[in-house]
């Protein structure tokens, strides 16, 4: 028994060196040559960092494409979903309000055109993407607010749409921050 205790202590120490020092340091070092140097890829505007490519942020002005509702208000110091159950009456009221907001700010929009992702909170609260349909229903509003041609905006959306992985697997998506930066850069 005593033997096992001493062996356990020594083995634990050896493994800590291997698994908690050498392994993570090695990966961190390799990460230095990745995009964003292993600290997350940043996006800039006029030379200033305005966000991370993977982390969604809050857009509320009419001239920007809006992201999804967020349970943490896009504060990336934390992360969480709403954890609302599908039959929760308060939740259903909240969704109903979001639908009304979208209808109000996007004249001409029909309820049946609103995709679920635009009125439901994401799992992380930091979802950087919306669906293609989620972008499509906002083109009208953004074009008007920026006094741009609709087709120009449509083109920009298409350019910032990420197709399914290898063209085969999974959904397509639009990165809201990248799209908005592209709009600002016009």
């Amino acid at each position, binding site marked *: 028994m005593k033997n096992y205790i001493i062996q356990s202590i020594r083995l634990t120490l050896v493994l800590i060196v291997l698994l908690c020092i050498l392994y993570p340091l090695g990966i961190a070092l390799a990460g230095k040559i990745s995009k964003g140097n292993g600290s997350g890829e940043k996006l800039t505007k006029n030379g200033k960092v305005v966000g991370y490519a993977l982390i969604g942020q809050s857009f509320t002005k009419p001239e920007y494409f809006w992201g999804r509702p967020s349970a943490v208000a896009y504060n990336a110091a934390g992360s969480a979903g709403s954890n609302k159950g599908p039959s929760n009456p308060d939740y259903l009221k909240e969704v109903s309000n979001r*639908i009304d907001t979208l209808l109000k700010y996007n004249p001409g929009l029909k309820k049946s055109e609103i995709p679920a992702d635009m009125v439901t909170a994401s799992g992380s609260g930091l979802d950087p993407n919306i669906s293609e349909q989620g972008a499509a229903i906002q083109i009208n509003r953004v074009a008007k607010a920026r006094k741009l041609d609709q087709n120009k905006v449509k083109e920009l959306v298409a350019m910032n749409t990420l197709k399914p992985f290898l063209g085969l697997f999974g959904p397509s998506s639009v990165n809201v921050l990248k799209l908005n930066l592209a709009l600002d850069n016009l």
Partner: protein
Amino acid sequence: MNTELIGIIATFLLTLIIAIPLGKYLAKVFAGEKVWTDFLKPLETGIYKLSGINVKEQMNWKQQLKALLTINILWLVYGFFMLIFQDKLPFNPDGNAGMTADLAFNTIISFVANCNLQHYSGETGVSYLTQQFVLMFLQFVSAATGIAAAVVLFKAFRDKTTTQLGNFWEFFVRAITRLLLPLSIVIALLLTFNGTPASYEGKDQFISVQGDTVHVSRGPAAQMIAIKHLGTNGGGYFGANSAHPFENPSYFTNMVEVIAQTIIPLAMIIAFGYFIRRKKLAWTIFGVMTIGLFMLMLPTLSSELGGNPALAKLGISQTTGAMEGKEVRFGPAATAYWSTLTTVISTGSVNGMHDSTMPLTGLWQLLAMMINAFYGGCGVGLLNYFIYLIIAVFISGLMVGRTPEFLGHKVEAREIKIAAIITLLSPFLILAGTAIASFVFVNHGGADWAVQPKNWLNNPGFHGFSEMLYEVTSSNANNGSGFEGLGDNNVFWNLLTGIIIFLGRFLPIIGPVAIAGLLGAKKFIPESAGTLKTDTKTFALMTFAVILVLNALSYFPALALGPLAEYFTMLK
């Protein structure tokens, strides 16, 4: 067919393509046969030398368990104090506080037990030091513990009669050097180069496009996320787990992570068959488990892809399915696929919030964790299935009027008693735990805890009950996912789930290893016309029926009160 469905079919096929050769490789590694990773032998010899271990020393099943429990208890003590004092220790760039005693108790048991239920949030609850030196460390060693325990069981059935079951330390170290560490390196690199942070830089701050000041938590996440999946641990670096865009940046990384959590449990089944030279038995087990998996997955897919009926009534379009709690880059199909695998296998990482899934999806998630043996966790999945096998052997033996035998060894009263106790343990812990929680919620709503019981639930009605049932079930299954709306960081839930996780981990390891040790030591009876064959379709069906009946009888009432009741109310 749409790209979301093609995506999950491809993911499953890729899993098989990787897992089957991996299983054959593992059988060789643990049998000490020649493999291409033998160049790592000097590393292992070094580890043994520094630790004062002589791997030539053979252990019987009792010694194996003593070694296993000793080192696990050591980790409990070490981690508990690290978590409590993390605010006073270095590597805490975000200045996070030390854990309270009850939270540290829960967290350390949860990680030692390979459960990874988290009542803290990664961004604010732990330091970089404890993330790596406690939590990530335990993700490696708890997975290796499970694998080593399963190998002890392999050993008991390889030779005709034996009490010499090999050396625990050797199995344990090899599980790390030959499997977990090399694969973690590959996966961590894939994640890092697809956007997951891996550096030690602290929280960042910037002004957003619209002019808000935003903080972003970062840190050495890729290293931990790799082993969290490979080792079927599930404890995320960030609070939102693999739904967090840093933790799981793209559809590709999502495929990598869900494949990573499935390959070892699958490979262990194949390894079992090759190790004891009964391949057909392994394929029979694999068949039962896979059918079980699909029976849980297909209805899950159907209920998620169908969307939320309550939202449909509001008139919006749900072309791809239900989206609350899900991420656009994965979509409902890949999230439903993940939710089945993470509950079937005891990973418990999530790429979407289970609390917001449809009522029937919740039902299948719960049932998957209650059964806990379709693939199952790293090593322990097979141990759990082994208990079902012994019960099935016993019942079949009674049906045909023969002494039950398993792989040439008589199964007698002592083994059956152990199997029966382990079988009864799960319903006891799950149902008693949920009952106590419900009682406190109803009768002591104002108790002076960090979260008052009356505020525990994030959702009213039946769904609220499901939140408590899920928490307890997940603890017993050592799964670690949650209906995260539950206000669980308070002394009641920390202690209750801590105790359940501990019992739900170690008794189901001790039981099967003891049975295997006892059986292995018995006289070998050569196969005859009267032998009950355990690798036939009939016996597979028998095992499946045993699993179904045991779980249906144990859990139907509880499931009826939670997800089923919610489902039928929504139909109205």
